[in-house]
């Protein structure tokens, strides 16, 4: 078969119907772009969700629900019902099978962002996605009591730079707190790089600082002026932390993890709960699965609409092209060749639509990836075209060709019926 001549004929015929062709290609392209974008964002959401934290084998908190521990420790959502005593923490931390830990002490906030009290091990060990570490965009880790390191979202939203003064609100993570630690402002000493995780939406102070700002508080309320303890007279002894909220733990050997989890859950001196974050995170993601299915169903419907618009465009064109078909017939085109011509046109249409859709998808990702990552914490992971996208492309081409058999057969039958005597 002389492919060049056939493709030339189909191409020029399509070009002759420029408007209908363009619109058809456009609608098919959009439907495929939507389908692929939804898939990509879904994948990003899933991995962003399940990989908010990595390299942590166990998260340990006071005994409550395993979901609750993950929510308040990793996603800064909700409150802990109880604390972990520093003795238990130190005991577990010094066990031989433990490689490192990161303590977390929660409870205070700043203008809608959570304040996390931790130690410098956080900057050293905390990992997210595939072993990415927390990095500084500016400054460094805290090293005196009233230093604070802020996440990138915090810096952007509140327009803070190094040296900005921060007042921590007591017991509040929403809006301005009722009570404020305004007698002990913090100074920004470090700004973290965007990570696309909850880290961006928090402020980090030392565990000692957390003690220091609550030093003069009694039974959960702010001190009166005469009872205030001034910043200057605070000594290291005064601010030794007594409790923490939870801690992340890494074992030296993965095999130890389950054994250690059991040990912690059976811990005698206080009720503790150790959870494996990966397990809880994927359970949680699966419970959000129906949303994912609805998104997918909508995308497939859009793809169907794209295919239908192609069918309609080809069907309507057939009537105008009866004369053309009659000419081709009499020049020697067989009925099968007429069918092939329609299929070839569909193939060209779809191939252009797929090509443009891929270009548009790559362009959209290129334009929106940084924005999605910093605004919504969606990190578009490689590869851009995974097996699912390739499947969608072939599905689109396959169904387009299958559907175009309908106009193809119609062209055949009308060519047979019309013979050479089409009066147009």
């Amino acid at each position, binding site marked *: 078969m*002389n492919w060049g001549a056939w493709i030339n004929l189909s191409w020029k015929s399509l070009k002759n119907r420029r408007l209908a062709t363009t619109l058809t290609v456009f609608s098919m392209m959009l439907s495929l772009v939507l389908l692929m974008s939804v898939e990509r964002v879904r994948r990003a959401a899933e991995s962003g969700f399940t990989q908010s934290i990595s390299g942590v084998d166990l998260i340990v908190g006071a005994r409550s629900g395993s979901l609750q521990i993950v929510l308040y420790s990793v996603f800064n959502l909700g409150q802990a019902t109880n604390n972990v005593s520093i003795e238990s923490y130190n005991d577990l931390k010094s066990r031989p099978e433990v490689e490192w830990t990161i303590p977390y002490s929660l409870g205070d906030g700043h203008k809608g962002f959570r304040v996390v009290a931790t130690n410098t091990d956080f900057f050293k060990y905390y990992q997210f996605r595939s072993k990415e570490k927390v990095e500084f965009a500016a400054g460094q880790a805290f090293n005196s009591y009233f230093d604070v390191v802020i996440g990138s979202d915090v810096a952007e939203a509140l327009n803070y730079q190094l040296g900005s003064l921060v007042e921590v609100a007591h017991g509040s993570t929403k809006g301005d707190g009722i009570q404020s630690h305004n007698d002990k402002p913090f100074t920004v000493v470090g700004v973290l790089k965007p990570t696309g995780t909850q880290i961006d939406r928090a402020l980090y102070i030392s565990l000692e600082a957390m003690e220091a700002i609550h030093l003069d508080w009694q039974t959960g309320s702010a001190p009166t002026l005469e009872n205030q303890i001034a910043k200057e007279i605070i000594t290291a002894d005064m601010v030794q932390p007594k409790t923490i909220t939870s801690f992340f733990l890494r074992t030296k050997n993965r095999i130890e993890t389950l054994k250690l989890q059991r040990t912690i859950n059976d811990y005698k001196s206080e009720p503790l709960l150790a959870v494996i974050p990966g397990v809880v995170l994927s359970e949680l993601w699966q419970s959000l699965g129906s949303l994912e299915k609805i998104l997918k169903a909508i995308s497939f419907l859009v793809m169907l609409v794209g295919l239908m618009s192609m069918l309609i465009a080809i069907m309507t064109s057939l009537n105008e092209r009866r004369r*053309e078909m009659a000419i081709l017939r009499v020049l020697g085109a067989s*009925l099968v060749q007429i069918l092939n011509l329609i299929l070839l046109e569909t193939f060209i249409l779809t191939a252009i639509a797929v090509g443009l859709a891929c270009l548009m998808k790559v362009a959209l990702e290129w334009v929106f990836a940084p924005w999605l990552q910093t605004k919504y914490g969606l990190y578009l992971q490689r590869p851009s075209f995974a097996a699912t996208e390739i499947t969608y492309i072939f599905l689109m081409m396959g169904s387009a060709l299958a559907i175009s058999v309908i106009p193809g057969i119609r062209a055949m039958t009308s060519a047979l019926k019309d013979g050479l005597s089409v009066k147009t």
Partner: protein
Amino acid sequence: MTEAIAIKNLKFAYGENQILNIADFSVQPGEFVFLHGASGSGKSTLLELLAGVLPTQSGQLQILGEALQDKSAHQLDLFRAKNVGYIFQSFNLIPYLSVTENIQLPLMFLKSKPDLQLFQHLIKSLELQPYVQRKVTDLSVGQQQRVAVARALMKQPKLILADEPTSALDYDHREKFLQLLFQICREQKTTVVFVSHDRTIEKLFSRVVGISTINSAHHQPQVIV
């Protein structure tokens, strides 16, 4: 020598409506036959049968020694692609293709390469040289008809069927057009069956046949919408 066309008891009807009933009619190779008749007298149906576009219903239809009544639809398509050149009354070019592409279009269905020497010869004889790269819609009606002739002859068919190709031309152009057609058909030893109701040009043909003299079917012409 095999007859170019040999018809025996050929009948054709659309439903109840008998269009053709030709007992005996034949054309020798190289003849230029002028077939005339009123509208609805079955001229076009006969041409479609000769071209193998319509299947034979009953009787025998031999073209170039091959019995069309025994051929399948696919064989008819192949036969037509190989042997029959067809010239329409009008609107017979593909509007979005250039002159060259239109002329070489039939070769696509034959799976053969264009004979460039023949192509040059045809466009020269038909005075189409200046227009080969133009779009056919930019050409005059007379030029378009000459493109159609070139297209019909490009695959060197043994039989040319023409359905009133001159009706859109004025008298001078008609005569010139036919002389060009005959000149090239003589070179290629092609048989021509030319259908028209315009008898002013019949003197240019080697044989003139009234369709009513060979077709014994009588029917009321119908307006087909």
